[in-house]
């Protein structure tokens, strides 16, 4: 089963595609394939965030090239004075003063990030074979040696503060590149997030551009049944940020909002549907955080759906 899926993907994606809509479609297909092959995974995050990551990697982010897909290095050691840090940021290319940085906060989106990097031509698609395997850096919860990650963010809501420090440091060095941050909406339940927003506004760090996947779903279920964060835009504006609330599946709107200079730390609240593109997931509501098939029958319906997606992809 697994080999069959991978074989089909290799056939389809021998040449990387970079148009955002193709990246987004590819993200959903790859994550669904992975979930089918492993009887589980973070599928709803792919459905909600596919366009966000596609727009960033495919259009907005000004990153240097990796000169083709990179192979993830095996795990060697945790950072110490004897073993230097290995940064997943290498998949974003060599940093430069005028280039953008991209800090990913919700480490639980790792599979989705890996899929997006593959679609963007920055990560070897064989990397997913190492996903959650012992001795691999392609971890289930992204670590800072995992492709695309450059900070330790599995304890949520810490990346925004670190990104603020990075942006402040870049300003001190007169660098002109922007610092983008990808966040999940649940992180706005943590107090640290608001400490960070207040500091970003106080220091007028308008080079920080945050895109939030507002999918209104978290581990225990719908956010409103866990702890409401709304009115999020009003709160952020009151803290001194600029805010756009938009349809997180609209590529044109996303790109425009992410690029729009505002003179303030900027938050793009991308309202998304965690079942988008995989309508079968609606049967799973209200709990969408992690998909594990409950029966062979359920799994086979996802398999049929996946094969339909492949056919559509081949016809594009």
């Amino acid at each position, binding site marked *: 089963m697994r080999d069959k899926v991978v074989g089909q993907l290799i056939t389809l994606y021998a040449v990387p595609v970079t148009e955002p809509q193709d990246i987004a479609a590819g993200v959903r297909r790859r994550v669904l394939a992975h979930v089918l092959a492993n009887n589980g995974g973070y599928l709803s995050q792919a459905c909600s965030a596919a366009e966000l990551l596609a727009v960033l990697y495919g259009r907005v982010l000004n990153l240097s090239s990796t000169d083709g897909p990179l192979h993830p290095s095996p795990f060697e050691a945790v950072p110490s004075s004897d073993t230097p840090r290995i940064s997943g940021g290498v998949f974003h290319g060599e940093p430069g003063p005028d280039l953008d940085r991209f800090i990913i906060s919700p480490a639980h989106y790792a599979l989705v990030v890996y899929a997006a990097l593959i679609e963007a031509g920055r990560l070897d698609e064989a990397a997913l074979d190492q996903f959650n395997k012992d001795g691999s850096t392609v971890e289930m919860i992204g670590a800072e040696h995992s492709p695309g990650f450059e900070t330790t963010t599995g304890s949520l809501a810490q990346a925004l503060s670190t990104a603020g420090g990075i942006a402040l*440091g870049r300003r001190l060095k007169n660098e002109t590149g922007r610092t983008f941050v990808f966040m999940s909406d649940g992180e706005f339940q943590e107090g*640290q997030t608001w400490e960070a927003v207040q500091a970003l506004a*106080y220091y007028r760090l308008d080079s920080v551009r945050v895109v939030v996947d507002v999918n209104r779903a978290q581990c225990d279920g719908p956010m409103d049944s866990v702890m409401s964060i709304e009115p999020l835009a009003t709160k952020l504006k009151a803290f001194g940020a600029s805010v756009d609330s938009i349809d997180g599946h609209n590529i044109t709107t996303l790109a425009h909002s992410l690029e729009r200079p505002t003179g303030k730390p900027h938050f793009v609240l991308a309202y998304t549907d965690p079942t988008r593109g995989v309508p079968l997931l609606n049967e799973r509501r209200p709990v969408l955080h992690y998909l594990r098939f409950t029966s062979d029958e359920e799994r086979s319906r996802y398999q049929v759906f996946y094969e339909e997606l492949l056919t559509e992809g081949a016809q594009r």
Partner: protein
Amino acid sequence: MTSMRDVPIVTRPHVENFIRWSADKPEVVVLSADLTNSCEVGKWRDTYPERFFSMGMAEQNMLGFAGGLAREGFEPWLHTFAVFLYRRPLDQLQMSIAYPNLKVRLVGFLPGITTPGGVTHQAIDDVAVMRAIPNMTILETGDATEVESVLDVAHAIDGPVYIRMLRGEVPRLFPENEPFVLDRARVLTLAGDTIDSPTDVLVLTSGILTEEALRAVPALQEAGVAVTHLHISTLKPFTDPMVARALAATTGAVITMENHTITGGLGSAVAETMAETGATAPLHRIGLKDTYAHGASQAHLLREYDLDAFSLIRTTEVALDRSLGIDAADLAPVRIAATHSAAKVEAL
């Protein structure tokens, strides 16, 4: 060996020293959480306003910003009270700074019972918590010379450093030309000719309790006790071979004195070394005995919790199981810093 009768007092040694030291280090930035003057960096802020960042009372975020600045090649020196560096933001300290082994310097003021601020302001478990954090280096200052020279030691370390810092009126116990050296104990008293000479009692002290021990050691010597006294200023790493040699040479008792709970700090580090090296003398730990303290003057708390010079006498008597005929009047006089001193900007 310093006589406690003529210890010079240095007022706010960190203030000018840190300004001078930073002058040729543009990568050094300071982050503060609304305790700028209380941590003696108000003048630093006014001298280098472009590299001073007020982060407000928001320590979790401050530690994250520090991690980001360190990733960009800066060397953040965080100045706040010790309790606010490791209690509230422990997860941020571990994930945003310690795991990636970033060069962030955490300058923690008010170690242990040096403040009348009570339980909320007294860092009595910081060494224990910090010792459990991989990649962390822990330094503790015991006098003005160490307050001044700890900067170079921390600066040279590739990774995060936590400093137990003193402020206000600080005694100069050690010569200015004998700076702080990483992971090297200071020999203050030797029982014999060398560190390996047989010793009745080995006293290992850190921080402000070294001053207390210095008041008591002459009385112990006069009572005929062969004492070796080492001052410990690096709590992690704790691998100085001289400490292991002194432990091996001790026959009567090993006594540790720390301005900290006896769980997880200097006493525990010594116990680990003794167990690992097979040292056999009984260990007596002077420190807070698994208790919080409360708001009162340093002198009062030292007496109340048996952390003072006379406690070293009593502990030695218990350890050697004999009376030494010493009473409090035989000890060098107590140096009492005023609770409301002009050397401090606030009463804490």
